[in-house]
């Protein structure tokens, strides 16, 4: 059901690097899982509205008041790389 091309496509959507062996394993395992959950298709859901959340509430808003925040150093303490209190990343756009 899930062929190699689909695995490659979905892995790309999820930005998940993968070995050839992983592709094969996940292809097989996802096929088995999807076969097992295929029984969902038999349920008559005409007129049923979807549940996106278990909460019976609509979102509760708090007052829009400014609160003390964290020092940049505290928030950057876990960053793999930083410079001048900014996160440092590889170039997104490069001149060709």
């Amino acid at each position, binding site marked *: 059901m899930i062929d190699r091309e689909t695995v490659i496509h979905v892995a790309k959507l999820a930005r998940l690097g993968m070995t050839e062996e992983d592709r094969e394993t996940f292809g097989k395992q996802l096929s088995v899982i999807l076969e097992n959950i295929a029984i969902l298709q038999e349920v008559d859901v005409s007129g049923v509205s979807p549940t*996106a959340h278990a909460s019976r509430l609509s979102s*509760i808003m708090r007052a829009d008041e400014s609160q003390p925040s*964290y020092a940049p150093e505290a928030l950057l303490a876990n960053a793999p790389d930083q410079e001048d209190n900014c996160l440092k990343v590889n170039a997104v756009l490069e001149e060709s």
Partner: protein
Amino acid sequence: MTELYKLSIQEAGAMLRARQISSVELTRAHLDRIRAVDDKVKAFTLVTDDLAMRQAHEADIHFANGNTVTALTGIPLAIKDVICTKGITTTCGSNMLKDFRPPFDATVMQRLNAAGAVMLGKTNMDEFAMGSSTEHSAFFTTQNPWDLERAPGGSSGGSAAAVAAGMAMGALGSDTGGSIRQPAALCNVVGLKTTYGRVSRYGLVAFASSLDQIGPFARSARDAALILQAIAGPDARDSTSSPQGVPDYGANLNGDIKGLRIGVPEEYWVDGTQPGVEKAVRADIEKLREMGAEVGEVSLPHTKYGVPVYYIIAPAEASANLARYDGVKYGYSYRDTNDMWEALEKTRQYGFGQEVKRRIMLGTYALSSGYYDAYYKQAEKVRSLITEDFTRAFEKFDVLVSPASPSVAFKLGEISDPYEMYLQDVFTIPANLAGTCGISIPGGFSHGLPVGLQLLGNFFAEDTILRVADAFERVTDYHTRWPEL
């Protein structure tokens, strides 16, 4: 005198307040117990000795000075490693967050700290709470204190095992599809999955946001009530937390369940449930009837769709929640390239384990163009039907009762097929989908291994299921038994 680590929270609290013992003594007894048995059980990813002793000392000062104290002041607890602790590593059982130190405390931690509780350490779990055995922890597997060759259940297996082995008086876990109740069942402790919205999730690392809930582990219903009391209630930082008032959970633990209507869902007796589990739970139901409950059959006709619905919705939400692990802001980061996309893909390839990747793939597939309606939308609609099953059942019954898990603790390595592992949660998943509450309590033994009795309650009916649990404990001794270690 009983060894200190065997006391209940209620007993220890009374002794602390009467100044018969100190929190330093109580905490030291638990740290000693951890040193004695955790080499075998491996419940903790981190033991915070210094912090624990400091907090214990502070608690003792409060007792000495006659300051206001709570039921949890000076009580040593363990915390699942998916709950953010300020400055203390919060790994989620993942290489991705191996060295992650949150800059803040989760709301539940702020509340435990304010209550004066003592934190002993962080407990092992399946990576990002995805699993039913702790075998998907990136670090090591926790062993079941009742049989070290068996799994403690999961994903909160470390918390369940710590409480079962006397390494903590209680613990926090999280339950997305059964991750509190199933390990509680396999380790012979009490595990409570709270109603969606009952406990703030601010600082709980997100797995599936429409399902995740935090809840307590303890060795009695009363102790679980004491922990719930400290952590329940609205929080301005979690927009899904409910403004519903928090009752006194201890007030109605009076042992009386006469006339209480208890429903037995006929669909919860499925092929694949072990005969020993069914026998124990049938006997428990008989016991509830003898205690004066009105027991009757009830139908939850969409039960069999619970696991399939869950394995669309939970992975779909996980695939979105786990998109944040990009190696830029925190966590593991692949650095050996100048290419942004390669860095991102390899960060996720090396940072995540197999089960997490499997679920990200499944969720991404279910949400992808061309499959969204057939899978995700369909699952959301069937979820409504499952919720309606409960709505109808709770019109006639106060509590529903079933096994918490179809089997007793299984051998480590015994379940290798992913979908077979998913079926571990067949009895626990529906309550997560509906958002209602449930508890697993010690319900007997089969071949020397614990069987969990699950009590399911309506929205915000934690007080009712705790009352039944406490009443059941008064006429049984399963919860008082200790594993040999």
